[in-house]
């Protein structure tokens, strides 16, 4: 059955699908037309006009992102008229853009700069007034630079339509338009949850993370400081992309080597504390189920999600697991267990974490997360920042020999590693919960319904007659839908894993720019491959975790565990 439509593009016949846009047909055929405001999966905005193409019989150029294909359409994607139009649009954007490309954070991958090169913009044709706006550096995670904003609207849409937060919106109109928070207040008093998804979609340097490289380099250069680094599960399967290697290529070994060369005294793995988190959280789940505690239990390792609950769904605060996130748990363990064992004054330890996440920078500064007045984590660097640091030190991941991480906190099970993808925390938790309840290992450790990039996944796990209903959500727009249903009594679960970023940490706000779904899939597959080929696949089987309990914590949910590894939350009074 052929319901294809025949069109002609640049003189060649093409088959397009009924109802699809011109852009979609062009993409499938490998013809590239630039876009600036287009967002895959969302309704076309039609704002930037740079995707315009020349269609025979139409008086004006046609926006390919929003116009549907029609039978016998004759399209020219690069006619002089279309090219001239695109060039002019780029020139107009440049006319209202600051001139500091050399100093700009995005100077190596800015969309506007790339387009200017592609379309041969080599002179400042329009020298006129430029808009002036103040920098917003109030947030611990993000920096907003509205002067570089080209008003494509993608940040507004991702914040509202994907994340369900809507902390920022357009203000005023015409040339005086800007993107900002209500009353043009600073980001840190708004409802922003620090997830950084806006950074991921921003085509220019208007949005970027708050950099903590300075602090880290200072600590590295300070002989009195014992600098420890931990890296999140998704970092090792992503970092390679910043060095020209393919997505999903696992560079855990060479990254460890690089980190040592940078001067870190110990290289630990957040996957270790992910296992630790599972021990605590699975215990918490079993405890709540068996004693009629507050259900559903909601995971709390995603700081954007936790802030989201505190702001929008404070009635669910009691459902959140009291467990700290793996980053924070390891931070506490380092400052209070490792320090003691090694005889180091915790005040001399500078604990750094490498995260795919900008909200982790906010999390590290949460006042309730320090223990005995000492903060768990001192600085958080994103994947992007780490790549810059490695390059600054002249290290080449292609050349270094892989090295093993430091013990004891560099040892991990693959369950901990799965934390990087959406569904991973749930899979790890189920493997251990099963063991805690039955004393036996799950027959098939791989729980397929929890895998994949779907925004909402559900499963019913049967543990010797006890049916546990679980859900996995990524992207907070989906979380809203789920929570609203639960509030209305339409759905109920025992345990829900929520990750702020759609797809999980592998697509976090601190990862390499862009929303390349193929790269995300490759990173996810790499994690699954690791899980497939290694032997220690459950958190409770992590020998170092076992040792930690034996020697120090006693057992999950013990008083020592609570003191170091658990926290509390509170309602946030912000303008939502």
């Amino acid at each position, binding site marked *: 059955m052929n319901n294809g439509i025949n069109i002609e593009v640049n003189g060649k016949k093409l088959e397009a699908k009924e109802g699809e846009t011109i852009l979609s047909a062009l993409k499938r055929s490998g013809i590239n037309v630039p876009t600036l405001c287009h967002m895959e999966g969302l309704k076309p905005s039609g704002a930037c006009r740079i995707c315009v193409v020349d269609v025979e019989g139409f008086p004006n150029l046609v926006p390919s992102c929003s116009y549907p294909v029609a039978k016998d359409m004759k399209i020219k994607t690069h006619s002089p008229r279309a090219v001239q139009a695109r060039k002019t649009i780029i020139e107009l954007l440049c006319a209202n853009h600051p001139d500091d490309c050399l100093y700009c954070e995005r100077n190596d991958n800015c969309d506007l700069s790339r387009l200017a090169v592609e379309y041969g913009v080599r002179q400042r044709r329009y020298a006129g007034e430029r808009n002036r706006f103040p920098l917003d550096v109030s947030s611990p995670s993000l920096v907003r630079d509205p002067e570089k904003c080209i008003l494509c609207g993608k940040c507004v849409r991702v914040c509202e339509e994907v994340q369900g937060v*809507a*902390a*920022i919106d357009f203000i005023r109109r015409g040339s005086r338009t800007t993107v900002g928070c*209500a*009353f*043009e207040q600073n980001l840190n008093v708004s409802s922003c949850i620090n997830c950084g998804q806006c950074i991921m979609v921003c085509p220019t340097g208007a949005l970027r993370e708050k950099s903590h490289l300075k602090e880290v380099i200072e600590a590295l250069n300070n002989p009195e400081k014992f600098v420890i680094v931990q890296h999140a599960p998704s970092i090792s399967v992503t970092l390679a992309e910043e060095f020209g290697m393919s997505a999903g290529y696992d560079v855990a070994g060479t990254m460890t080597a690089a980190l040592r060369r940078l001067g870190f005294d110990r290289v630990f793995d957040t996957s270790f504390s992910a296992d630790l988190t599972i021990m605590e959280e699975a215990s918490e789940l079993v405890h709540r189920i068996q004693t009629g505690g507050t259900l559903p239990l909601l995971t709390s390792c995603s700081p954007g999600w936790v802030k989201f609950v505190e702001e929008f769904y404070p009635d669910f605060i009691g459902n959140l697991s009291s467990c700290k996130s793996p980053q924070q748990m390891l931070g506490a363990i380092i400052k209070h267990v490792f320090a003691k064992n090694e005889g180091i004054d915790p005040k001399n330890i500078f604990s750094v974490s490498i995260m795919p996440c900008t909200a982790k920078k906010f999390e590290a500064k949460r006042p309730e997360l320090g223990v005995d007045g000492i903060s768990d984590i001192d600085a958080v660097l994103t994947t992007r920042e780490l790549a810059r640091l490695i390059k600054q030190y002249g290290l080449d991941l292609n050349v270094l020999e892989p090295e093993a991480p430091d013990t004891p906190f560099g040892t991990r099970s693959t369950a901990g590693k799965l934390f990087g993808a959406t569904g991973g925390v749930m899979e790890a938790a189920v493997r251990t919960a099963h063991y805690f309840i039955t004393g036996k290992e799950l027959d098939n450790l791989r729980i397929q319904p929890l895998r994949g990039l779907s925004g909402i996944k559900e499963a019913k796990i049967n543990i010797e007659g006890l049916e546990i209903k679980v859900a996995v959500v990524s992207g907070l727009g989906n979380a809203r839908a789920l929570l609203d249903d639960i509030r209305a009594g339409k759905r109920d679960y025992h345990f829900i894993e929520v990750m702020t970023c759609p797809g999980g940490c592998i697509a976090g706000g601190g990862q390499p720019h862009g929303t390349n779904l193929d790269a995300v899939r490759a990173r996810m597959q790499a994690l699954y491959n690791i899980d497939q080929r290694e032997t220690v696949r459950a958190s409770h089987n992590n020998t170092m975790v076992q040792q930690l309990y034996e020697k120090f914590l006693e057992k999950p949910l013990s008083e020592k565990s609570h003191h170091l590894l658990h926290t509390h939350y509170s309602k946030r009074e912000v303008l*939502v």
Partner: protein
Amino acid sequence: MTVNSSQISGPISQTPNVDLILGKYVDAHRDKLIPILQEVQEMDGYLSRDAVIKIGKHLKLPTGKIYGVATFYNQFRFQSIGKYHILICRGTACHVKGSAAVLKALQRELKIEAGQTTRDGLFSLEVVACIGACGLAPVINVNGEFYGNLTVDKIPKILNQYRNKEKENKDGKNN
């Protein structure tokens, strides 16, 4: 159009007018946003920060959205207007007949720009795109009263009318 930083922190103050208006819109959806904003401004003279927050809560919309919509439209003010609010028409017919000079004269006399209020709170100036009284161009409207066929020298006279009225009222009060 930014709000005073001193207004940022602190609890939401009493807004009896807004509550009254919102009380009429039970179960309202987003399509009632602009009418509500218009009614609130009608009553209070402008949109206060607290009004915007309350409206957002009532319609279950993010505050940023309410602010974004309100700042898009010319009609909405975030600062109170003067006792005598002057609208000057800058439509085509008025322009051709010399409204630009009238605007400059007003700005000169009042020492304020369009969109501002005089320090003594007496006058505020707003530019409108077209009042629709093109036959009488150039036109201004002060609190509903039209003044057409204007020339620059008529402006001080018109303004003094109101200034004198104020003086009389003040003297009347003092006596």
